[in-house]
């Protein structure tokens, strides 16, 4: 288990848990990110910029801070 900001580009990961309270759960939930969902990490921005992910066939940019709150299990 690791956090979303630790997964390499072009890897997939399953969301295990979202830490950091109701607000962040809500915000990510609205984007379709819930425990059990599969996320593809598309790319990292330069200089610790945001992470671009794919979730349910839409692309979402997440700040590193938020990504570090998403606990995931990397998929092979």
């Amino acid at each position, binding site marked *: 288990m690791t956090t979303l900001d630790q997964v390499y580009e072009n890897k997939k990961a399953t969301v295990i848990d979202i830490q950091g309270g*109701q*607000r*962040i*759960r*809500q*915000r*990510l*939930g*609205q*984007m*379709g990110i*819930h*425990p*059990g*969902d599969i996320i593809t990490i598309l*790319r*990292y*921005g*330069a*200089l*610790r*910029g*945001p992470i*671009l992910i794919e*979730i*349910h*066939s*839409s*692309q*979402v*940019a*997440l*700040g*590193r*801070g*938020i990504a570090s709150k998403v606990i995931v299990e990397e998929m092979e």
Partner: protein
Amino acid sequence: MRIALAGQPNCGKSTLFNSIAGYKAITSNFPGTTVKYTETKTHINGLICTCIDLPGTYSLTSGDPAELEARRHLLSGEVDVIINVVDASLLCRSLELTLQLLELEVPMILCLNMMDEAQRKGIQIDAQKLSNVLGIPVVPTITITGKGLKELFIEVVSVIEEKKKGQVLKFSKDIEAIIGELVSILQMEWPVEGKLPSRFLAVKLLENDEFFVKEIKEADHSSNQVRSFQERLEQIHGVPSDEVISSERHALAMNLFEKVSAVIHPPKKDVRITIDHWVMHKWVGYLILAGIFYGFFNFIFGIGGYIEEPLIGLFEGWIGHLESFFGKDSLSLFLSKGVLQGIAGGIAIVLPYLVPFLIGLSLLEDIGYLPRAAFLMDVFMHRIGLHGKSIIPFILGYGCSVPAVMATRILEFPQHRFMVSILTTMIPCAARITIIFGLVAFFISPNAALAIFALNILVVAVSGKILSLLFPYPEASLGLILEIPAYQLPPLRNTLKKSWYRIREFIVIAWPILILGSVFLALMEYAGVERHINWALSPLTHLLGLPTSVGTTLIFGLLRKELSLIMLTQALGTTQVLTVMTKTQVMVFTVFVTFYIPCLATIAALWKEIGKKGAWVAVLFTLSVAIILALMTRIFLGIFPLW
């Protein structure tokens, strides 16, 4: 009869609204373009109704002010029919909002939009099956080309006539049991004024929705009971109650999605993926960003300069004729000169730059480049103490400061809105860009104009740092969460329509003011009043080393920024500025006008969005920044004469 268009951001609500109402709402390929609602009276197939375009909302949970606006409308009980617009290519996620809308128990239609995009992704949707499950009509459309709209309107009329409400889909049994208990308590102890269905309320309370929990706490004593219901859910599922409900709804949406759709073929190798690979690349992306803005700049200057030059010569000739026709110092000479200079300013100086600028901006918006720019710029925005999403108001600020200030509603925290609102007013709007092009690029050199734009970005960044030190706020904000929509190639017609919508704003509102202002100034000159204003402002103009006669133009610039430019030619008595001002003076003048006090319309917008205090801070802050920068420009060019 009130019809509301509701849906997630960037699903095409405003495009649909425009095809119902004529072009009245700005659209772009950008989540969060609509931050306040627009409504219009219209008739659909002979039925007279009011149609409301709501800001996009991902869910009916509390969110940023733009989303709250949408939610306030939907919950007000004044909406008779909801058209739920859904991006078919994102059906799975969008259904979560649809399920919540159904809980409102208002007659509803599902507009399955962007069918072409879904097809490209290889998703096939059985609209009939979806309609059967939800109990509401489902109409596939492509609003951008107008496909399916006729069918949609027919269904709207029949839903209105039948008052047909949809099915509220049920959660798992154990959750439904708890909801049921809460509903019966609510119905007994907290009779809602018949506006909101009690099931909707019960679910919101279990979700621990800030707004409703607060409301019920104020209303009576059952808030403890609400907590105990939440606890029961938490005990069964082992996670917070809001997560129980949202996961449950998510699962419902996923099941439904799987039931009604099939991925018939994997998405074709899309060139857009390759494009994005470079556009959002770690460093190539920044080169492209710089290249786009440099290209954009040359595009505007190339077209504008080409047109401005001969037109200025033409008008200059006519103004010369006026003198010989009316005779020196006659009132009619002053009047006709005022009118002609106002017209000349619009045609020769403003429009040649404004038109290519607005077309270019609309194109960038519609293609969907702006969210990519936000992705690239996020890290720099954080460096100056701002949220990554702030880039959106900033980019809009290059068009007009008023929508830019309003766009700060996509930011969640008032402190952020305060800062970003003030900073966006310092971004040169279309009017000020015209001044930079018409004066500096045209009379000095394109590079000098580029320098002003670069200086501007630097100053905004430094100001961001300064403001965040002056008005510190707790770092409670979440980082960036921004949807990056797929690129779109909208029909050129739409882009041109939008550009025209914005250009028309100049022609019908700003231009008459410009002409009137020009005449007014000519009259003041004739009566000798303008001397007093210039005298009053002489400490400032003197400090900056500008001709005293430009004083009045700065006052007029507060009404409309373009006025500074038109008035300048009027005050100087010629469109050939360089015959009466040095290049350094032109540069100092432009720097000052670029940064100083926002125009009246913007001040009004600031007042509304961040309050009286905020508007004052903006006025004083921008004025001091402008004076300091103009003075620095003067000193710098005095030491290093570049021309």
